[in-house]
């Protein structure tokens, strides 16, 4: 790498701060851009959620008409999934994965910048429907024939299609980048089975994105052709098949569920060992369980379509139930990691524990829904809404917040305030359960999803009101977070390189890291190189397998002083 010494050193010439961020190809800055962009969309989609819950607080149409209501829940779902959860976790992946691998950057830094900048563009296009006669209004699943030009003549649906296609392209390019980075950019000694679990989950997620998202792109393009060029993919009057859309959408949509949850599982698997002061229990079992979930995710899509009557119920029910096995393995990995650990209930740990409990509830209701006799009764009711919010919000979003509190000190060199973080967690946790737990009962009582009004005599009044109160509590819980972030930027406690006594390589460099990430790397003999570094060879001897695996350059780096 002799040529690098000839290039101007970073920081030797000045340019404007704005231009620097607009043109950056540094994975750390791009990661922060991802996360900032995701939180902006989170606030927008969160306001839409409050709009929905306000309308549903009491029976009767108070301040929305039905068309506006349909747009609100469609935009809420689309934006939360495609422009908040996935990009937020991609943002942490962007920032953390190269650091955890001991790499100086992603494999393709300029493609990395491209895949970020497609996101705000796509998001703005999706939202811009509001400026052109109404946004898309057929639900985030875009079921045919609701999306046909006959029932949704507005341009909002076309903007939704184009925006989603751009976001999908961004995801695919990002996935190529992650996989190439993980396979080609690992530091010496960082074998696949010494990679942090977060990297493993990002790798499996990237494979799912790479193979599932293009199928959605094909479906979106078919839909666009149907709407604009007189095509008939999904129009049964001229030979098309509306159920085909559901197949295509869910062939993408179910891997998508794991695209959303796996990196959050990775975040939790980083946090629990650090704050239990123990290694993750069953590292390899966890890795294989992650791979198994990835493989199974391509064989379960039709469990979203049990009631169409056009899918083979026993197969898809069985395969779906099968996913509970690797997921259960992970649950036991986490619990055994906590068992007899020296638990430290910091804010990231609280959110990780919140993830464990809330994701468990979502997982159990998921197994219930995998059973066709149950599914036929609760299909398209609030039971499904409760389930998906327990996995997406109780799972993934708790993971996003855990990651935010955990890695903020690395990104900005200052620790977020702990008391404020705990206030955020508890209001959030209670609000979340108030908002979504009653929806289980509403669903069992037969309240359909996506309705803007309900009869005052249906018996749903109290639970809907409770749910709305919970939604506003979630909104309130964001206030301490915002205060915390602003206060920390102004006058936060300096974090130091390694505020949590972490296990992985991102804590081996400064906070924030220099542009090239590492001046030098510690030796890597296990998935916890920093623990090894701090506590030395006495602990390493407890794992003779790792010592045997030492390659020559490890010995050389220690000066042959083993």
């Amino acid at each position: 790498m002799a040529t690098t010494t000839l290039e101007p050193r970073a920081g030797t010439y000045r340019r404007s701060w704005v231009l620097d961020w607009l043109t950056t190809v540094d994975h750390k800055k791009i990661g922060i851009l991802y996360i900032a962009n995701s939180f902006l969309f989170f606030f927008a989609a969160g306001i839409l959620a409050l709009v929905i819950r306000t309308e549903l607080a009491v029976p009767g149409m108070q301040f929305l008409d039905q068309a506006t209501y349909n747009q609100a829940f469609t935009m809420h779902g689309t934006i939360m999934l495609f422009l908040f959860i996935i990009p937020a976790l991609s943002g942490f992946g962007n920032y953390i994965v190269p650091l955890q691998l001991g790499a100086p950057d992603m494999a393709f830094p300029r493609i990395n910048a491209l895949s970020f900048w497609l996101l705000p563009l796509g998001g703005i296009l999706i939202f811009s429907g509001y400026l052109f006669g109404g946004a898309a209004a057929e639900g985030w699943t875009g079921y045919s024939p609701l999306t046909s030009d006959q029932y949704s003549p507005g341009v909002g649906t076309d903007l939704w299609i184009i925006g989603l296609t751009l976001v999908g392209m961004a995801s695919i390019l990002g996935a190529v980048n992650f996989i190439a980075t993980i396979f080609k950019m690992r530091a010496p000694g960082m074998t696949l089975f010494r990679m942090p679990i977060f990297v493993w989950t990002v790798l499996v997620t990237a494979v799912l994105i790479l193979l599932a998202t293009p199928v959605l792109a094909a479906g979106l393009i078919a839909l666009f052709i149907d709407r604009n060029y007189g095509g008939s993919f999904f129009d049964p009057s001229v030979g098309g098949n509306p159920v085909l859309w559901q197949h295509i959408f869910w062939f993408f949509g179910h891997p998508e569920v794991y695209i959303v949850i796996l990196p959050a599982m990775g975040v939790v698997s980083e946090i629990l060992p650090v704050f239990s002061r123990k290694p993750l229990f069953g590292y390899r079992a966890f890795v294989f369980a992650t791979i198994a979930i990835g493989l199974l995710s391509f064989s379960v899509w039709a469990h979203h379509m049990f009631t169409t009557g056009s899918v083979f119920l026993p197969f898809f029910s069985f395969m779906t139930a099968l996913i509970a096995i690797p997921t259960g393995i992970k649950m036991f990995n986490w619990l055994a990691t906590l068992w007899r650990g020296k638990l430290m209930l910091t804010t990231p740990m609280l959110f990780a524990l919140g993830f464990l409990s809330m994701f468990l509830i979502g997982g159990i209701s998921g197994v219930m829904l995998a059973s066709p006799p149950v599914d036929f009764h609760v299909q398209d009711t609030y039971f499904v809404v409760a389930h998906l919010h327990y996995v997406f919000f109780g799972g993934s979003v708790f993971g996003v917040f855990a990651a935010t509190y955990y890695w903020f000190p690395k990104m900005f060199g200052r620790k977020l305030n702990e008391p404020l973080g705990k206030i955020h967690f508890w209001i959030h946790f209670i609000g979340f359960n108030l908002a979504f737990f009653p929806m289980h009962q509403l669903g069992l009582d037969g309240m359909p999803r996506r309705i803007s009004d309900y009869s005052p005599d249906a018996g749903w009044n109290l639970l809907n009101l409770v749910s709305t109160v919970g939604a506003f509590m979630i909104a309130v819980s964001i206030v301490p977070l915002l205060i915390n972030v602003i206060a920390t930027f102004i006058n936060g406690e300096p974090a130091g390189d390694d505020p949590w006594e972490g296990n992985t390589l991102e804590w081996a460099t400064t906070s924030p890291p220099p542009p090239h990430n590492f001046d030098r790397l510690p030796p890597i003999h296990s998935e916890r190189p920093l623990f090894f570094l701090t506590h030395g060879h006495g602990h390493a001897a407890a794992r003779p397998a790792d010592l045997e695996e030492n390659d020559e350059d490890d010995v050389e780096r220690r000066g042959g002083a083993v």
Partner: protein
Amino acid sequence: MTGRTMQAHPAGEHEAAAAIQHGQSGMPTALLGMLLFIASEVMFFGGLFATYFNARATTPGTWGPPEGAHELDFALAGALTAILVASSFTMQFGVWAVRRGDSGKLKMWTGITLILGVLFLMGQLYDYSQLGFGIADGVFGTTFYTLTGFHGAHVFGGAVGLTIILARAVRGQFSARNHVAVEAVGMYWHFVDVVWIAVFSTIYLLR
């Protein structure tokens, strides 16, 4: 740089640049990137093929162009297939040439491949102009034009890539050691060729 690292390993550390070596062995990173991108493209075409087979399976009666339109031009499509398959060979001759460091042959074979690709696109446009039915004429028309059209768009993308390769070859930017772009575009071109074989077999042979 952490103080702790220094303390634990005072001696035997490499310099930063030497310690951080990445992607030094195996497939070049750019080529891996292209392979992964092609994997996603395979799934994209998989989705389009799924729409084709689904439409075919659910359409009652005969499957083919709408009433009153011309039959598909099997001879023309066969000729186009031959052109594109031949272009895959010429592409590979170019890749082999640059691996030997023969930039003259690289320019020649890349040029020939580009001409064959453009010939294919012109033939496809001619075919479209003669068929007498459009994308809006029933589900056969919709799936036919979507599949062949998106394939054509990929041929066009490949032709753009070939043009860049040709321009860079003319400027002498490739050598036996440094030509990963040629390998990547070559790989993409083979992929486009294989997709066409699948499209041709599906639409013209499986009648």
